[in-house]
């Protein structure tokens, strides 16, 4: 019998590439949960995920109401894509999502990043995506430590017990 030794998780690198409320919050909740457990966490925002750390956009994220098969009406019926396309529906649904999260004490994006960085978590932006969207450190929120390349990200991912998570 070979003895299997389990290595506890020590560091998580969490990549957020999308701007939907649910995709951004998945990354934020995982990062915050990690620092609360004493696990080192680094968040790396790329492509549309950059919205979550862009000052002008971070607290105005939406959830997609078109082409989202998980969407339901409040009574549980499927949510018709055509209804989701009507003006104001996406904003309404997004406001409802935020309200429901607030009831569970899940904070807005900026406050959530405050919590994560207070616990020692670090926030980075992807250089290629920032160049593509013409964003500089001035456009990004104060939580962002640096704009880095994918090579830099991998260089930070060393060490036993590290996992890279793409949300």
């Amino acid at each position: 019998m070979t003895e299997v030794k389990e290595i506890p998780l020590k560091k998580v690198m969490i990549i957020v590439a999308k701007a939907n409320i649910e995709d951004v919050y998945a990354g934020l909740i995982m990062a915050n949960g990690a620092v609360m457990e004493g696990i080192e966490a680094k968040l790396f925002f790329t492509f549309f995920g950059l919205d979550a750390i862009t000052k002008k956009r971070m607290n105005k994220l939406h959830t997609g109401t078109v082409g989202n098969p998980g969407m339901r009406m409040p009574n549980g019926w499927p949510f018709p894509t055509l209804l989701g396309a009507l003006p104001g529906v996406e904003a309404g649904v997004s406001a409802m999502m935020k309200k429901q999260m607030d009831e569970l004490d899940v904070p807005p994006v900026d406050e959530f990043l405050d919590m994560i960085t207070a616990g020692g978590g670090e926030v980075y932006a992807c250089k290629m995506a920032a160049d593509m969207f013409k964003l500089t450190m001035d456009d990004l929120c104060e939580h962002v430590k640096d704009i880095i390349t994918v090579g830099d990200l991998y260089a930070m991912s060393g060490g036993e017990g590290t996992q890279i998570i793409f949300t």
Partner: protein
Amino acid sequence: MAEKTFAGKTVEVTAEGYLVNKGDWSREVAAEMAKEDGIELSDKHFAVLDYLREQEAAGAALTIRRVGKSGIVDIKGLYQLFPGGPLKLSSKYAGIAKPASCV
């Protein structure tokens, strides 16, 4: 269930070291539990523990966000008081159940 002796009193604890019976809690028990983890409890620590106990008794769901807004300590301070487990460790020393929240 395991048994442990804190401050000369034998108490029942869960596998993770949380008190099974809330009535077993005292400031001395809390101080010895923390000492096992290498933390010396100060008045500031106890202010957090008292807050958690009050909130829990009132039936509130505990999160670090709530503690951060309590006016006792901010979130950064909470991490400094209870390194590696701001809510997990503070709840343990407060003699309440392990928090079931994700935030």
